């Protein structure tokens, strides 16, 4: 035993421990490091190009009148996108009011009550499938369900229909983040509450949910940010309107649909407004993501 040890050490005894860049393994190492770095650079490049291009094309139009005025009639100059900004806020708010209670409630069921039975498996699977459904399908679905049937006071296109379409898009994100966040709450915390005579309801509302608040809030904000930028589900649900919003049951202007409409119009003023709206929308979504990160800082590790 002892002799083999000595021979093994002596085989390397004369070699230097210094780093030699010319060795094949060191060359391959640097080569693949460089490749990986290059590809990760390419991966973030689109983000910076989009930001720079949108800022370049639309940033110059930023003014208070852009944020407060109505878009001009075709052929006229000036105007703003005030109605679309307000419309996006309204439609997103409607979507949040539907998706957050349903999604958080569903997540609570999955994580706290279901005990992993077949129904919970089915809901989890369904949620995953729903998150992969193209957004335009959500739009068509709501179009068929609400717009074409005119269920809301005989109105066809409406802010309400747009909000519901976005809510369908937001739901999987909210359910999944709530489910995951609650699963991260240590089991000991639940035991602690139940061990001193708390009912399951009290345990969830007073101990588990507050402990998971930060990741849930982060997920919800990300879901809202995603929904706010969607175009396809709004084109044939909320439609568009050149006027200020007229209640929840009338067509409403939104940023994304405004961009879609104005970018392809043969008028300079509309094209410029589309760029300006793109810029405002990107900034809004960026702000929502930063808010989510800021909320995430409160997460307890």
């Amino acid at each position, binding site marked *: 035993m002892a002799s083999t040890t000595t021979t093994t050490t002596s085989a390397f005894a004369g070699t230097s421990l210094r780093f030699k860049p010319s060795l094949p393994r060191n060359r391959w190492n640097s080569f693949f490091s460089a490749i990986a770095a290059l590809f990760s650079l390419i991966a973030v490049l689109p983000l910076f190009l989009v930001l720079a291009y949108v800022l370049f094309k639309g940033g110059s139009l930023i003014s208070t009148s852009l944020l407060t005025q109505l878009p001009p009639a075709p052929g006229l100059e000036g105007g703003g996108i005030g109605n679309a900004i307000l419309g996006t806020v309204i439609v997103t708010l409607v979507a949040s009011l539907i998706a957050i209670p349903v999604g958080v409630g569903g997540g609570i069921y999955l994580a706290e009550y279901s005990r992993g039975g077949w129904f919970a498996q089915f809901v989890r699977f369904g949620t995953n499938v729903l998150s992969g459904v193209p957004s335009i399908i959500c739009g068509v679905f709501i179009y068929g369900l609400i717009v074409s049937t005119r269920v809301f006071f005989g109105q066809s296109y409406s802010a309400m229909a747009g909000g519901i379409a976005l809510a369908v898009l937001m739901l999987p994100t909210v359910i999944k983040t709530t489910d995951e966040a609650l699963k991260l709450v240590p089991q000991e915390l639940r035991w*602690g509450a139940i061990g*001193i005579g708390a009912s399951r309801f009290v345990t969830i509302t007073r101990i588990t949910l507050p402990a998971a608040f930060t990741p849930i809030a982060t997920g919800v904000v990300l879901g809202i940010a995603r929904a706010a930028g969607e175009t396809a589900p709004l084109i044939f649900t909320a439609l568009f309107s050149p006027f200020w919003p007229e209640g929840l049951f009338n067509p409403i202007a939104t940023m994304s649909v405004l961009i879609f409409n104005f970018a392809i119009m043969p008028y300079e003023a509309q094209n410029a407004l589309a760029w300006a709206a793109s810029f405002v929308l990107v900034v809004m979504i960026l702000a929502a993501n930063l808010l989510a990160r800021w909320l995430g800082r409160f997460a307890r590790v």
Partner: protein
Amino acid sequence: MTPSMPSLSHTEHPSSQFCMELENVGISYGGNEAVRGVYMQIPRGKVTAFIGPSGCGKSTVLRALNRMNDLIEGCTLKGRVIFDGQDLYDPQVDAVEVRRRIGMVFQKPNPFPKSIYENIAFGARINGFRGDMDELVERSLRKAAIWDETKDKLKESGYALSGGQQQRLCIARAIAIEPEVILMDEPCSALDPISTLKIEEMMHELKKSYTIVIVTHNMQQAVRVSDMTGFFNVTAKADGDGKVGCLEEFAPTETIFNAPSQQATQDYVSGRFG
């Protein structure tokens, strides 16, 4: 210090010197039998310790005493657990009510992510306590021997305390709901010797008002704190493969450690095990 303890009235009943009685208790997880054939009479106002090798089912039996096993899927119990004249596993018994009268302290300190004050007040509040909350918090913290360390920072998070302090906070939290029994599942296994000593001293005080059942891996601790000791052991099943836990011997602590009637107990307490 404690003028009105509801549990004191129970200790005065000479008729029922036993707080809890287990009759032929067997517990299974799914189809897996964890422990079987446990008969035990836990005396009131005393400290009862459960000792035994890992996997012998002592924690399982402890958790059965306040129906914490309900939280584990597929866990079923045979036999009867009598507390206060009622079978805890009667279908009409409310498990939440059981846990209000039989509190539990866990192996790992698990304070709520709230202030020290709120940690104590939470349990009392959900149990419908309508009195001087400040007084209750102080009394509970004093009983858990942690008042002096926390009185100046009641508004700070429970996480700001050290591990040993957190565990005493959890004990104070269990005391605050004024239970009759306190179950402790290896409460000192994550603590240093000094914190352990403090908790053991506290248990000597607590048993004047409460019945305490403690699971411990530390035999010296069982000797120091307990009046009765139950030795659990793992034995091969007679009817096939696998192993099952059982209560080998249940007797006063002195008997268990000095003159046990079973050879296995003798081997275990003298360290000649396995």
